[in-house]
Each structure stands twice: as structure tokens, then as C-alpha cells.
């Protein structure tokens, strides 16, 4: 037997190793790096943890060296504790006495103190804590014996700035430990090869992609509203369907109910209790703004099987397995196949068990999306996660992190980062700009200046003083939340947090719903929102400015296919059958576009003129398209449009007439000058200003103050709006400002996808339908009150329209 100790332990547990576990053991033992893709519940941890135990078991005890051998990175603090327990159990089974510890923000001071003296054999931590370690002067000697580096849930970090933090940390560590074995664990995504390339960087060609042959089967059931003809054409809450779900909740041991927003969880929780009051005490709420005590309580109750249902957001997408969960509801569009499957996978956790997910539409047309999801899952079409390129803010933070520890030589760092995926194309000029920005605050040295942060000593960039180091260490990380205020009872007890802007809309005595309770707002004191319980049943529900998820391109392609089939009167599946009448109505009043057609509806209603277009490309692309069209239409004559968009289409609304013909349409669709037109059309500066908040935080341009000492930093307060204004105005070449605009184009507008959409629309036949009555497709857009506005008019003219009473 090749792995006698591991095999013996498996045998003792009455398990047999899976194919992918054996492959990983083999690969790790021969010094390889790679990426493991396997479904949850099949023992991914053992695939990559046991090689350490195996090799330690072969060494005589006296030959074992103390110190860190395995670093295990996870995106979630909550995951580390349970993983550590499983690892400790395995180590004990091997008869090994190892220190296996976690190091996160939650780690208690005594353990942290012990870790400062000597790191454990196995350390489970987050990317942020890893960077904290790199900001200490002796990190190199602490990692002397490190042989294994495992990144769990790599797909969760691949597409964001935390992934880049890991890339940078790995690049640095590898220069000291060239034979380090690096492994990622990823759920299925569309670009696994690329995911491995990003993680292993220069060594990816020798990396091994291990994919399990096992897959968990997933059953998808769409809930068709009983009273379909009365089901709303629009809306996003889906509350009328609640009574239909109650029997399903009773049927299963535990159900997770996923909604897309925190506000929606609050509303759904209330509604379920209204419909089935006997469930009180057996259902709970879980979302990211609740206090960690409440969340932990809910998670524990879930483990113990004490809950029938939990209404939650993506806060429960990840994390440890809850065995009692037998089924999952997805309320409204999950926006991507990957997220839908991830949520489905939260049920049926034992190996061999299957997942069961119910799709609950929040309005009629969403059933079309359900049909598209069915096909996508059947064909296993899962989205790719695009790795980030050139996030200068993360680079600046990393430079500062190194400056706080041993310091760094610019030339050495330059060589190092060019081998990372994120910075492979960075120019020397831009790299030098970053160094200059850090060392001299972006200004020429002749000018009078008191800028202080880092200095050069013996060719190394080093933090100037202890204060600078302290401040930086407190702000390491890339997760940025809006200014949140803690919600507490007047007599103590934290409930969670709400965003500042919501609180400013409250007056003392107002009641709002939070954590499933009616709370009366009393006052704001010491940055805390003090409340007391209320018996009133009305009240606002706070909403949080969470990012809106865009509809993925694979899902939107499937949607267009469904529409095409409907136009050919082929309606597969219960979802499309239920939609038949609605789609027939659309065909009768207007048109059902086939895949080679693009539908434009010109509606003349009493309140003005509308142009509606249905590319089925998702809200994000529609946001860009509508702004682009409005801008291009307004180039010749000043005109103001307001815009509305959803995942299926968008609307331009104006009090002036909108003229449209094939020639004008062609001009709207051109990809010439696309980038400039987009930047000019979207309120790009405003959007970039919003992006700048996160960039400022990551690059260390805002400082949130020392805990418990807000007063001393009062003179250092500036909003990122203000910072953006001065940088934008006085330092046009500032890379961070440019990054803000790039983020708008790449992430917010998805320029690449928008271009593809335009090219596709150029080839489609234009169908213009003029009408004086709304159509089924247009109805959700007409009802949308969250509109964007774009204007090619002068500021004075705009102000005049906004303030008819102004002189």
C-alpha cells in the first residue's frame, strides 16, 4: 500500500478513499501543486490534509521539526473552526500530537500571544490574517518549514481583490520556498484551468487539475403559482406565493430559503409567520447585517436540527454543512447557474445524497428564467469567474504591508509581481508611479511638503514609524462595507447593524423591522442606534445597498432560446406551459422575438414617449446599453431621458418624441468609439466616485480610526467623495482614479459583454412595434420606479426642470 497510514485510518473509519483523494495523495507526495475540483460532502479536506499526516507518520518523532508546515486559507472565518476540529480528529486518529490552530479576527488573545512566539504545525486562516503575518519583520523565519499551502473555496476569491491578495502573498512566499506545494480547492466553475493558472502563476504548467468523477445529483422543481392568471407580471418580492410553500416546509426536516436581499429576508420572515403563526420559534432569519451572536445561534440551531426553516441571503451560501437541511428554496432569480447550484448544494449533504432545490418565481416572466436554469444545469453550463487585472489599490496595500515588516527593494518587488497573474502586464512606469505615490505622496520633491509614510533605507522601502505601522495593520484587507451603525437595545444587547443612510431617515418613535422584530428607534448615541421593542406591526424595512447581481451571459443565452422556442410555439416543461397565455398575449399585442430578431416597442402613452428594447442580456448590460443609446440619441438634439431596466430589457422614456428607423438603429449599435461614448454617456464620473470608496479604503487613503478613540482622528476625516473630487481635479494621472473608471467599465458595465451584445444585435433583424397600450414584456419596466436619468442638456436647464419653482 502506498499510503499505509492514511489507508489504515480510512479503514478504521469504515471509509474507502475516492478516486480524487488517491490522486491528490499521490500528487502531493511527489511534490506537485494543483487544483482540486470535487463536490461538497466527499472529503475534499482529507484529500489535501492527509498527505501531511502521512509524511509526519513516517518520520521518527524525534526528527520532526517544530514550526508551521501547512497553511490552510479559507475565505470565511466561520469555516476555520470546524475544519480545525476535523483535522484535529484526523491527527489524533494517526496518533500524532500536532498543534492545529486558527488565526482570525476571532482568535482569543492568549492563543494569539502563543502564536506570536511560535506558530502551530497547521494554521487555518484568512487572506487578511496572512497579510498581517507578512507585515511582521520575522515572517520569513516563521515560515521556514512551510511545505503545504492550501486555498480552500478558491473560486470564491478568484474574481475579487482577496484573490489578488493571495496571488501577491504567494508570489512573495515562493521566492523563499521554491518547492512549496500549492493547492487550490474549487467548486465547479467554467474556467477551472484558468483558476489553477492564477493560483500557481508561473508554475501552472506543471500543475495538476484533479477532478472528481463523482457529482451530486440535483433535482430542480419550479413552483408554479396556483393562481397563475392572477400572478403579478412584475415585482420582486414574491410574497403572494408564500401560502403555497408552507406545506413544502412541513414536508422536509429543514429548509433553507434563499432570497437575494437582506430586506427581502425580513419581509419573507414576517409573511411566513403571518401565514403560519404556528411556525414561530421554528423558523429563523440569517443575513450579513445581523450580529454574529444571532448568526451563531441560528447556525447552531440549524446543526442541531431545531429549525424547520431559515430565511437567508448569500450569508449562508458558503460555510459548514448543515446536515438536517433537506431542501432549498430560491426566491427569485439566482442570476447565475453557479450560484443556483451552490445554493442547491446546501441540501443533501451526505455523500450520495442528492440536492433538492425549488425555484420560486417572484413574477410571471421569471418562470422563463427557471426554464433556462433547468437547461443550463442539465447541460452543466457553469459560468467562469474572471480574475482581476491590475488592481493598483491592492498593490499599494501590499507594498505598505511589506514596508511595515522587513521592507522591500523596489527592483525585487518588480520582478516578483510581474509573475503574478493580476500584474503580469503592469508597466514599469505604473509600477514606479505606485512606489512614488507611497514614498513621496505623488508629488514632486521640490515642493514644500510634510508627507510622511514610508522612507528609503539602504535601498529598502520601510515604514517611517510605529504609528504608521499600527494604522496600516488595522486596515489590511479589501472587504469594504458602507458606514454601518450598530443596532442595540437601550438597555444593552447588540442586534446587528444598519447602514447610516437608513438611520438618517428615521425619527425617534419610528418603527422598523429588523432581525424579524419590530423595533422602535429611540436615539443615536456613541455611533449606536438605540432601539426598544415595539408592538406595532407597521414599520419600515431597512434596505442595504448591496451590489446587484448581474444575470450571467450563459443564463441570458438560454433565456433567448426559450423565447425563440415560444415564438415557434414549442413550449417544453411546466414553466413554459404555465407561461403560454402570457406569451400569447405578448405575441398578440406586439411580437415574440426569435433568436435572429431584436424587438423594439415604441409606446406612446399619456405621460410621454417610450422606447423599449429586449436583448435579454441582464440588468448590468442593459444599464450600459440604455445609457449609451440615450447618449447617442441626444448627440444631435438636446434631450433628457429617464431609463428603467431589468434582466430582460430596458426602457428609454422622454417627454419628447423618439424617432427610430433602421438607419438610426444602426448608428446606435456601432462599436466605434464605444469606450468614449460609454464613459461620456453613463454618469461615469459619478459611478467612478462610488467605486473610489472601496479603492480609497484598500489603498489606505481613508482611515477609520483607532478602536475606541474616534475623537483623535476627527481632523483626518474626509469622505471618499471629497477625496475623489480633489484627486480627479488635481491629479489626473493618478492610477487609483483611473482604476475607478476601469472598474466602472469592466465590472459595473462589463464593457466586453456589452460589445458582444452590440455585435449580436447588429446581426439581428430589427422588429419595430408601435403601440398605444402596454405589452406583457413592457409592463415590469413601466412599473419600475428606480430609474436612471441621462441628459445632454446644460446644467442650468437640468436644474430648471428639477426645480420648477426656482427663478
Amino acid at each position, binding site marked *: 500500500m502506498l499510503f499505509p497510514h492514511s489507508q489504515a485510518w480510512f479503514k478504521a473509519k469504515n471509509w474507502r478513499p475516492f478516486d480524487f483523494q488517491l490522486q491528490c495523495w499521490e500528487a502531493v507526495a511527489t511534490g506537485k501543486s494543483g487544483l482540486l475540483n470535487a463536490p461538497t460532502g466527499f472529503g475534499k479536506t482529507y484529500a489535501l490534509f492527509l498527505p501531511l499526516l502521512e509524511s509526519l507518520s513516517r518520520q521518527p518523532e524525534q526528527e520532526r521539526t517544530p514550526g508551521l508546515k501547512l497553511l490552510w486559507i479559507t475565505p470565511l472565518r466561520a469555516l476555520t473552526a470546524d475544519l480545525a476540529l476535523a483535522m484535529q480528529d484526523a491527527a489524533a486518529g494517526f496518533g500524532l500530537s500536532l498543534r492545529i490552530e486558527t488565526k482570525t479576527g476571532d482568535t482569543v488573545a492568549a492563543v494569539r500571544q502563543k502564536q506570536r512566539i511560535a506558530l502551530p504545525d497547521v494554521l487555518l486562516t484568512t487572506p487578511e490574517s496572512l497579510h498581517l503575518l507578512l507585515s511582521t519583520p520575522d515572517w520569513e523565519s516563521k515560515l521556514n518549514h512551510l511545505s503545504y499551502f492550501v486555498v480552500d473555496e478558491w473560486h470564491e476569491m478568484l474574481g475579487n481583490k482577496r484573490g489578488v491578495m493571495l496571488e501577491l502573498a504567494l508570489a512573495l512566499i515562493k521566492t523563499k520556498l521554491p518547492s512549496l506545494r500549492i493547492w487550490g480547492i474549487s467548486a465547479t466553475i467554467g474556467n477551472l484551468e484558468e483558476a489553477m493558472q492564477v493560483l500557481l502563476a508561473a508554475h501552472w504548467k506543471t500543475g495538476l487539475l484533479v477532478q472528481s468523477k463523482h457529482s451530486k445529483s440535483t433535482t430542480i422543481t419550479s413552483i408554479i403559482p396556483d393562481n397563475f392568471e392572477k400572478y403579478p407580471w412584475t415585482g420582486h418580492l414574491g410574497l403572494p406565493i408564500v401560502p403555497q410553500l408552507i406545506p413544502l416546509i412541513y414536508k422536509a426536516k429543514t429548509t433553507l430559503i434563499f432570497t437575494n436581499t437582506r430586506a427581502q429576508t425580513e419581509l419573507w420572515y414576517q409573511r411566513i409567520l403571518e401565514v403560519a403563526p404556528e411556525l414561530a420559534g421554528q423558523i429563523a432569519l440569517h443575513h450579513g447585517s445581523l450580529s454574529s451572536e444571532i448568526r451563531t445561534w441560528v447556525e447552531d440551531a440549524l446543526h442541531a436540527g431545531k429549525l424547520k426553516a431559515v430565511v437567508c441571503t448569500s450569508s449562508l451560501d458558503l460555510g459548514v454543512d448543515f446536515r438536517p437541511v433537506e431542501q432549498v428554496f430560491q426566491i427569485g432569480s439566482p442570476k447565475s447557474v453557479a450560484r443556483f447550484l451552490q445554493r442547491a448544494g446546501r441540501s443533501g449533504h451526505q455523500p450520495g445524497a442528492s440536492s433538492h432545490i425549488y425555484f420560486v418565481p417572484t413574477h410571471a416572466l421569471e418562470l422563463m428564467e427557471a426554464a433556462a436554469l433547468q437547461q443550463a444545469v442539465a447541460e452543466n453550463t457553469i459560468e467562469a469567474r474572471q480574475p482581476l487585472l491590475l488592481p493598483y489599490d491592492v498593490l499599494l496595500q501590499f507594498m505598505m504591508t511589506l514596508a511595515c515588516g522587513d521592507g522591500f527593494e523596489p527592483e525585487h518587488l518588480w520582478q516578483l509581481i510581474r509573475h503574478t497573474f493580476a500584474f503580469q502586464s503592469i508597466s514599469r512606469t505604473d509600477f514606479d508611479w505606485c512606489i512614488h*505615490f507611497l514614498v513621496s*505622496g*505623488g*508629488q514632486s520633491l521640490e*515642493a*514644500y*511638503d*510634510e*508627507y*510622511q*509614510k514610508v522612507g528609503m533605507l539602504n535601498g529598502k522601502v520601510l515604514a517611517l514609524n510605529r504609528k*504608521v505601522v499600527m*494604522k496600516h495593520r488595522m486596515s489590511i484587507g479589501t472587504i469594504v462595507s458602507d458606514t454601518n451603525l450598530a443596532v442595540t437595545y437601550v438597555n444593552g444587547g447588540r442586534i446587528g447593524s444598519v447602514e447610516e443612510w437608513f438611520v438618517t431617515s428615521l425619527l425617534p418613535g419610528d418603527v422598523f423591522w429588523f432581525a424579524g422584530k419590530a423595533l422602535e428607534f429611540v436615539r443615536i448615541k456613541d455611533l449606536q442606534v438605540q432601539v426598544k421593542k415595539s408592538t406595532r406591526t407597521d414599520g419600515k424595512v431597512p434596505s442595504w445597498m448591496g451590489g446587484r447581481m448581474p444575470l450571467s451571459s450563459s443564463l441570458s443565452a438560454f433565456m433567448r432560446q426559450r423565447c425563440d422556442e415560444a415564438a415557434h410555439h414549442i413550449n417544453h416543461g411546466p414553466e413554459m406551459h404555465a407561461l403560454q397565455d402570457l406569451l400569447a398575449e405578448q405575441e398578440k399585442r406586439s411580437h415574440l422575438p426569435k433568436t435572429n430578431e431584436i424587438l423594439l416597442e415604441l409606446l406612446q402613452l399619456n405621460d410621454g414617449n417610450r422606447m423599449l428594447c429586449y436583448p435579454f442580456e441582464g440588468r448590468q448590460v442593459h444599464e450600459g446599453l440604455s445609457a449609451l443609446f440615450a447618449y447617442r440619441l441626444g448627440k444631435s438634439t438636446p434631450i433628457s431621458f*429617464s*431609463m428603467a431596466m431589468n434582466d430582460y430589457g430596458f426602457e428609454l422614456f422622454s417627454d419628447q418624441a423618439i424617432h427610430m428607423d433602421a438607419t438610426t438603429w444602426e448608428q446606435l449599435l456601432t462599436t466605434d468609439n464605444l469606450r468614449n461614448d460609454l464613459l461620456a454617456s453613463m454618469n461615469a464620473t459619478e459611478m467612478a466616485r462610488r467605486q473610489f470608496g472601496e479603492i480609497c479604503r484598500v489603498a*489606505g*487613503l*481613508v*482611515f477609520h480610526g483607532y478602536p475606541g478613540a474616534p475623537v483623535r482622528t476627527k*481632523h*483626518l476625516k*474626509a*469622505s471618499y*467623495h*471629497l*477625496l475623489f473630487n*480633489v*484627486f480627479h*481635479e*488635481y*491629479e489626473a494621472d*493618478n492610477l487609483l482614479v483611473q482604476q475607478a473608471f476601469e472598474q466602472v467599465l469592466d465590472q459595473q458595465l462589463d464593457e466586453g459583454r456589452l460589445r458582444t451584445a452590440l455585435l449580436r444585435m447588429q446581426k439581428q433583424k430589427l422588429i419595430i412595434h408601435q403601440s398605444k397600450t402596454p405589452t406583457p414584456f413592457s409592463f415590469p419596466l413601466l412599473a419600475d420606479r*428606480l*430609474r*436612471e*436619468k441621462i441628459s445632454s442638456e446644460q*446644467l*442650468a436647464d*437640468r*436644474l430648471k*426642470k*428639477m*426645480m420648477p*419653482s*426656482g*427663478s
Partner: protein
Amino acid sequence: MMIAQHSLQLGQTSWVLDYRKAAYLPDHQLLILSDVHLGKVQHFRKNGIAVPQQAAQQNFTLMQALIDTYKPAHILFLGDLFHSQNNVEHQLLAQLHTANPNINLLLVPGNHDSAMLQQLPSYLQPTAVYHQIDNMIFSHHPPANLQPAHFHCYGHIHPAVEVRGGARQRLKFPSFLYTDAALVMPAFGNFTGSVAANQHLKQANKALCTSEGLWLMENHKFS
């Protein structure tokens, strides 16, 4: 319509409100600037936050332009002239004085000025917390009570007006607020924030300082 200056009578005196966030009293040859926050940019830089220095320079370019327009005999800084402790940016004020040696510079002390009050440069003359000219009272902070016999002029709150249109449109501009009893000055410093203060003075008229000029919202006639 956008205008560069708005001339009007307030509390029995002629005033000119300038879109560059300054007020001028022709009868007294007095230019008023509030909340300059001199030194704020350097204060940030000193703490490792690389705010561009040009932002500080721009304040003084603008001040010189205002001096050239109005040729005042006095400039009254309505508090918070200094942001924090003394730093190199304060040289800009010295340069302004050197370039315009005959202008009398007055400071009504504000809360941010406290660190500097003991070491004011000789060319800058502090006034009382409530500085009076005729029946006008100039202060940094809003007075506890508006005195009917007097006309109040103050700063401190960095007022802005937020206008909202349909379709989530929101535009925010620093603004003068005025009634027949008081005038609130916008903050002059360009590295200072502003606070939507649409409700600060009841039934106040507003003059919004946009980049293109003043925009007046005068809905209320004086009594």
C-alpha cells in the same frame, strides 16, 4: 439662469454674493470668506494620506482672483481658517499677505482655529467671538438665538443644497442660505465637505454655488 454675482439688500446693508463662495460688502469694502480649513491637505499628508497639494494652492489662487475683482480693504475670515496645527501650508496665507500688504486680515475664531490662536501671525488680527459692524453680527457658530435688532452672518455648518429630480437624480451644491435675519456662508475651502442643509434656516432663500455660476432659489419674499 446662472449669474456670477447676486446683489441684494440684507439687514439694511448692500451685499454681493459671489459664486466663488465669498460675500462682499461694498459699503465696508469687506470681503467675507468662511471655513477655509487652511492646512488640511498637509495635515492629511502628514498622516500618510497623499491628497494632492494643488487643492490647497487652488484656494489661494481663487482668493487672489476675488481680491482682484473686489479690491477689498478688509478680508474677514469667518472662522475655521486653520484646520489643525501649524504646518507648511500656512505659508500660503503669508504669501497672500505679502502680495496684498494693504489689506487688513481679520479672523473671527472658529472651533478648528483653537490650536492656532496662541500663535497667530502678526498680520492676522483676531476679533471677538461675536464681531459687530453696525447692526451686523459676524460669528463662526450659529448664534443660540437670532436677535431681532441684528443681522447675523455665520459659517461653520458648510451648508449645501441637495436638489432631487425624478429618476433618482441628485445634485448637491455648496450654498448660501439667507433670510432677512441671517446669512449662512458656504465653506470656502475646496478640500472641505458640505452638508445638505435644506432645512437649516426656516424658509431661507438659497444661492447655489455651481461651477457655472450662482443658481438662485428665492421662494420667499422678505417680510
